[in-house]
């Protein structure tokens, strides 16, 4: 028993202790600086204790276990709750703690004008602690409990600025959809318990390995839908745009950049560990199709948004689609391609966390300086906030996958993996979505940072130092991940991917050596991890990709411009009177064509498609529930049909 074995529980418990300490001293308003200090220090302690774990786990490939209350397994049954930290869990935990630590620093300035800050920091630390607890635990029911703390803290933080109508509405939608997702997950857990009579994940995966019964299939369908809600996969993605748009930016970056990773974590644990489905072509197809749908819908919705943060939230949905596609390819039976897909997915996870946090921080900086995130009211901020503009451009290029930024590397791996796995249409769709990403990021840049500066915004100042430093750290992360992919891959991704496939070791460490072999007769082969499989270093490939993106972009803009020239716009469509200027209508006296209207022609051209999507995002909470339930029903039909 050395200090290393206690580190996971320290990482989990410290934020909670911090939260309660803040709660205990909250009655004294003079102690507000102390509360901020507690928040920063607790998140730092979690980060540091996870960093100490990197040496044994990431580098030496060990798996740390910690049985709470010393309830070691007896008679091969896990009677207590065990924490199990493998490389994948630690990898996700590092993303979480790193971003949360920076967010806690960012909050100090960003949130200083709100009241009830004691409760803000309490909820912030509860959110952080529960996220770490979620990724480090090895118990199925404990995952659900941590997920609930996470959901509740996130909802409360979403509705924190309750003077704005939208945060309340978003909070309500979030609680309905979010707790529906949690309920589905709990239902799956109960069904699994009924089948296996245990709650430990390692034991469950040993017991139901290749042993699907109707009970476990239904459980799988429920849990997939539940984690789909948490990771915003498409029919269940309706809450994040609302929530991310209305939460304070220091929280939306966590919700969007980090909490989605916990959903993906659950998804991966479900598919690769609890229901070991590597090599099942039908499962692979389902996940890839689901991810592709998510990609397309997210990007199409993002292109028609007029709110900075809402656009970013839809862009998150689309990027999550990439990650899910990559993990879908990872299920492939051809191991070398599967590994490439998994590596790409992991890489995109860490990349998405860095650039999406940075983008939300930029949105927060704009909101902090001007008081709005509506891009039709903004413009020309590059003169007033040059530093933010540069950081925004870095993040925008990263997210749209331009070399040499980090998004390029991971997207390239995903393209190659999907292509080699025989899903060439998916590769093409992924490329097109990437073009769309660049397009809406340009729209955002044009309408917020370039163009004309409105008169109201002339007193705007650059954001304070604490905010800009944290933003700079994320921008640096984007650059580092883009320039040194070999190092990142060797020390972070390959151990994590290895642990995802190494189910044997996961089970053996939790119980006794040889436990897994007794359970399933044939040993699961662990594919070779070689980073050389990703061919991103080929310069001609870079060039071809860049040309493809450029042509796509030009075509996209061309369609819209071409359309504007034609002058035959249907005025009956209710996109607002603003566009009357195109047709000579004189309803609005002064209606400038701002950057936000950049792709209005495209939108008008494809109004059947976009109209359908808008109708689907109707804002009525009942409809959203219907989408989630239909998704569950479709999943259960599919899984019952193929398994």
């Amino acid at each position, binding site marked *: 028993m050395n200090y290393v074995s206690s580190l996971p529980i320290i990482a989990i418990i410290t934020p909670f202790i911090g939260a309660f300490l803040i709660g205990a001293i909250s009655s004294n308003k003079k102690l507000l600086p102390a509360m901020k200090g507690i928040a920063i220090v607790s998140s730092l302690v979690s980060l540091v204790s996870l960093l100490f774990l990197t040496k044994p786990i990431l580098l030496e490939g060990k798996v740390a276990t910690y049985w709470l209350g010393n309830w070691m397994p007896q008679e091969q049954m896990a009677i207590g709750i065990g924490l199990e930290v493998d490389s994948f869990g630690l990898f996700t935990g590092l993303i979480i703690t790193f971003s949360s630590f920076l967010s806690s620093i960012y909050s100090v300035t960003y949130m200083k004008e709100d009241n009830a800050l004691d409760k803000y920091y309490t909820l912030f630390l509860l959110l952080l602690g529960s996220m770490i607890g979620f990724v480090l635990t090895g118990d199925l029911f404990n995952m659900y409990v941590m997920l609930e703390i996470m959901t509740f803290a996130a909802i409360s933080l979403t509705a924190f600025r309750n003077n704005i109508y939208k945060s309340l509405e978003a909070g309500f939608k979030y609680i309905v959809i979010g707790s529906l997702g949690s309920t589905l997950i709990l239902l799956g857990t109960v069904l699994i318990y009924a089948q296996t009579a245990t709650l430990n994940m390692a034991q469950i995966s040993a017991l139901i390995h290749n042993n699907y019964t109707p009970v476990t299939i239904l459980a799988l369908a429920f849990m997939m839908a539940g984690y789909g809600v948490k990771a915003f996969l498409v029919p269940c993605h309706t809450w994040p745009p609302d929530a991310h*748009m209305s939460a304070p930016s220091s929280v939306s970056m966590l919700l969007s950049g980090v909490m989605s990773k916990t959903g993906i974590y659950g998804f991966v644990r479900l598919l690769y560990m609890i229901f070991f489905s590597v090599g099942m072509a039908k499962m692979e197809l389902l996940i890839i199709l689901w991810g592709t749908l998510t990609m397309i819908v997210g990007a199409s919705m993002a292109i028609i948004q007029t709110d900075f943060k809402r656009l970013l939230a839809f862009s998150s949905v689309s990027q999550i689609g990439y990650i899910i596609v990559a993990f879908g390819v990872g299920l492939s039976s051809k191991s070398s391609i599967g590994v490439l897909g998994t590596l790409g997915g992991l890489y995109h996870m860490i990349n998405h966390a860095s650039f999406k946090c940075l983008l939300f921080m930029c949105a927060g900086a704009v909101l902090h300086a001007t008081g709005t995130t509506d891009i039709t009211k903004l413009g020309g901020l590059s003169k007033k906030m040059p530093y933010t503009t540069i950081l925004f451009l870095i993040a925008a290029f990263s997210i749209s996958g331009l070399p040499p930024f980090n998004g390029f590397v991971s997207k390239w791996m995903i393209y190659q993996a999907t292509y080699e796995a025989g899903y060439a249409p998916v590769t093409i769709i992924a490329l097109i979505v990437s073009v769309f990403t660049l397009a809406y990021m340009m729209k955002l840049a044009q309408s917020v940072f370039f163009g004309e500066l409105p008169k109201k915004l002339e007193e705007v100042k650059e954001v304070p130092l604490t905010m800009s430093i944290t933003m700079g750290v994320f921008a640096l992360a984007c650059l580092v991940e883009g320039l040194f992919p070999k190092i990142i891959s060797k020390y972070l991704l390959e151990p994590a991917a290895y642990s995802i496939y190494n189910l044997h070791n996961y089970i053996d460490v939790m119980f006794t050596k040889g436990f897994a072999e007794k359970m399933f007769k044939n040993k699961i082969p662990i594919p070779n991890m070689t980073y050389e499989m990703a061919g991103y270093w080929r310069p001609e490939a870079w060039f071809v990709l860049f040309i493809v993106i450029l042509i796509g972009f030009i075509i996209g803009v061309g369609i819209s411009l071409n359309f504007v020239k034609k002058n035959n716009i249907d005025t009956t469509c209710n996109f607002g009177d603003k566009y009357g200027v195109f047709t000579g209508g004189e309803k609005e006296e002064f209606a400038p064509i701002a950057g936000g209207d950049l792709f209005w022609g495209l939108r008008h051209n494809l109004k059947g498609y976009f109209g359908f999507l808008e109708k689907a995002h109707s804002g*009525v909470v009942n409809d959203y529930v219907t989408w989630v339930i239909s998704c569950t029903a479709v999943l259960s039909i599919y899984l019952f049909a193929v398994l």
Partner: protein
Amino acid sequence: MLINYIGAFIVMILGLYIMMSKKNLIKIVIGMSLVDSGLNLLLVSVGFRPGGTAPIFITDLKPGAFFVDPVPQALTLTSIVIGACVSALALSLIIKIQEKYGTIDADKVRRLRG
């Protein structure tokens, strides 16, 4: 315990139906608590064994008596608390929504859309 399982699933599906079709926000929350109730019922029923006794070692335990499964009961306690918390949080949101929107009709509380 077939009838318990079926009853629990029916209660859950009725709750889902409320969430999908009723327009009053308070009713939606009632639907959520109904789903939770059904889930709790399912959870406890999973652990039941016909003829078992409550899992407490009382002194006058008959010889040969056996317990029902205590683990699902412990899980249900957690689940009940979480259900109550969901209701409390959702209802406080409804109170505030009422203040801002002047209505609690789901068709009118939809300023965030598209």
